[in-house]
């Protein structure tokens, strides 16, 4: 593959969020990951929270897609590393949830020690997501 633009150009691409299906979003993520892989030194990948989060998220999603147990999904090493990012991860997770629901509730509760989801909302992913996004706004993460 020949890439003629300078590396900084690729690493700063603002991808327009026009994905219409899971496949196109996956392609977008793979493209971003490929660019990072080619142009960003490992040290930068480790130190840039956004890049680190995206790399871990992509790995986690690929490895856990067929699992039905949230405990197993949350115990994946990449997910645990996202939890390990601590408060830095909160905004990144909430921004991700804004784009697409995911099983981020375990991570958010673990990092923040809070749970804004009402008992009657438990298991209802859209409502759980809304509750956390509202929490994020109230706590100035969004």
């Amino acid at each position, binding site marked *: 593959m020949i890439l003629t633009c300078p590396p900084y150009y690729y690493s700063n691409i603002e991808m327009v969020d026009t994905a219409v299906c899971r496949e196109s979003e996956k392609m977008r993520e793979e493209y971003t990951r490929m660019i990072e892989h080619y142009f960003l030194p490992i040290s930068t990948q480790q130190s840039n929270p956004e890049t680190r989060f995206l790399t871990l998220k992509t790995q986690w999603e690929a490895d*856990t*897609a*067929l699992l039905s*147990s949230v*405990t197993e999904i949350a115990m994946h090493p990449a997910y645990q590393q996202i939890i390990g990012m601590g408060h830095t991860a909160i905004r990144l997770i909430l921004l991700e949830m804004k784009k697409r629901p995911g*099983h981020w509730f*375990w991570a958010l509760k673990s990092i923040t020690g809070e*749970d804004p989801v009402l008992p009657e909302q*438990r298991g*209802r992913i859209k409502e759980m997501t809304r509750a956390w996004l509202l929490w994020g706004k109230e706590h100035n993460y969004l």
Partner: protein
Amino acid sequence: MSGEEIEKAFPNLQITGYSITSPATLEYNCIAWAAGESQSWWEPDPLSLYYWPSNTPRQYTAEAYKKAYENIGYAVCNNPAYEEGFEKIAIYIDIHGKPTHAARQLISGNWTSKLGQLEDIEHVALDDIAGQYYGSVGVIMKRPKEK
């Protein structure tokens, strides 16, 4: 996940045939789907983040899962063959006896399974998705069909 990837994960499906019957969604999981629920994710997680029937132990055990389905009228049986007037479900377990998946029988005698966070599929036999990911069928349950 594409059909190709599904077949890679469950090679038996290539032989017996299957169809994808829904888009991928996180709205519900296989345990809820087997119970006929498509609006929530059923999970006995230790943090109590997800829905789990109230009078059922929050444990990843076959006993707890059986209890969850008993709450909605199912009772253990030992035959997965289609029986007129009954609905059947199957709980899959891993080698440690931990539940991994559940499937529900359709009126055709085929089975419907929600694959993790992905699509629902209709498959012919319970063994079609047994193996690396879901282990084997550990419990069959049935209840009279609602008229």
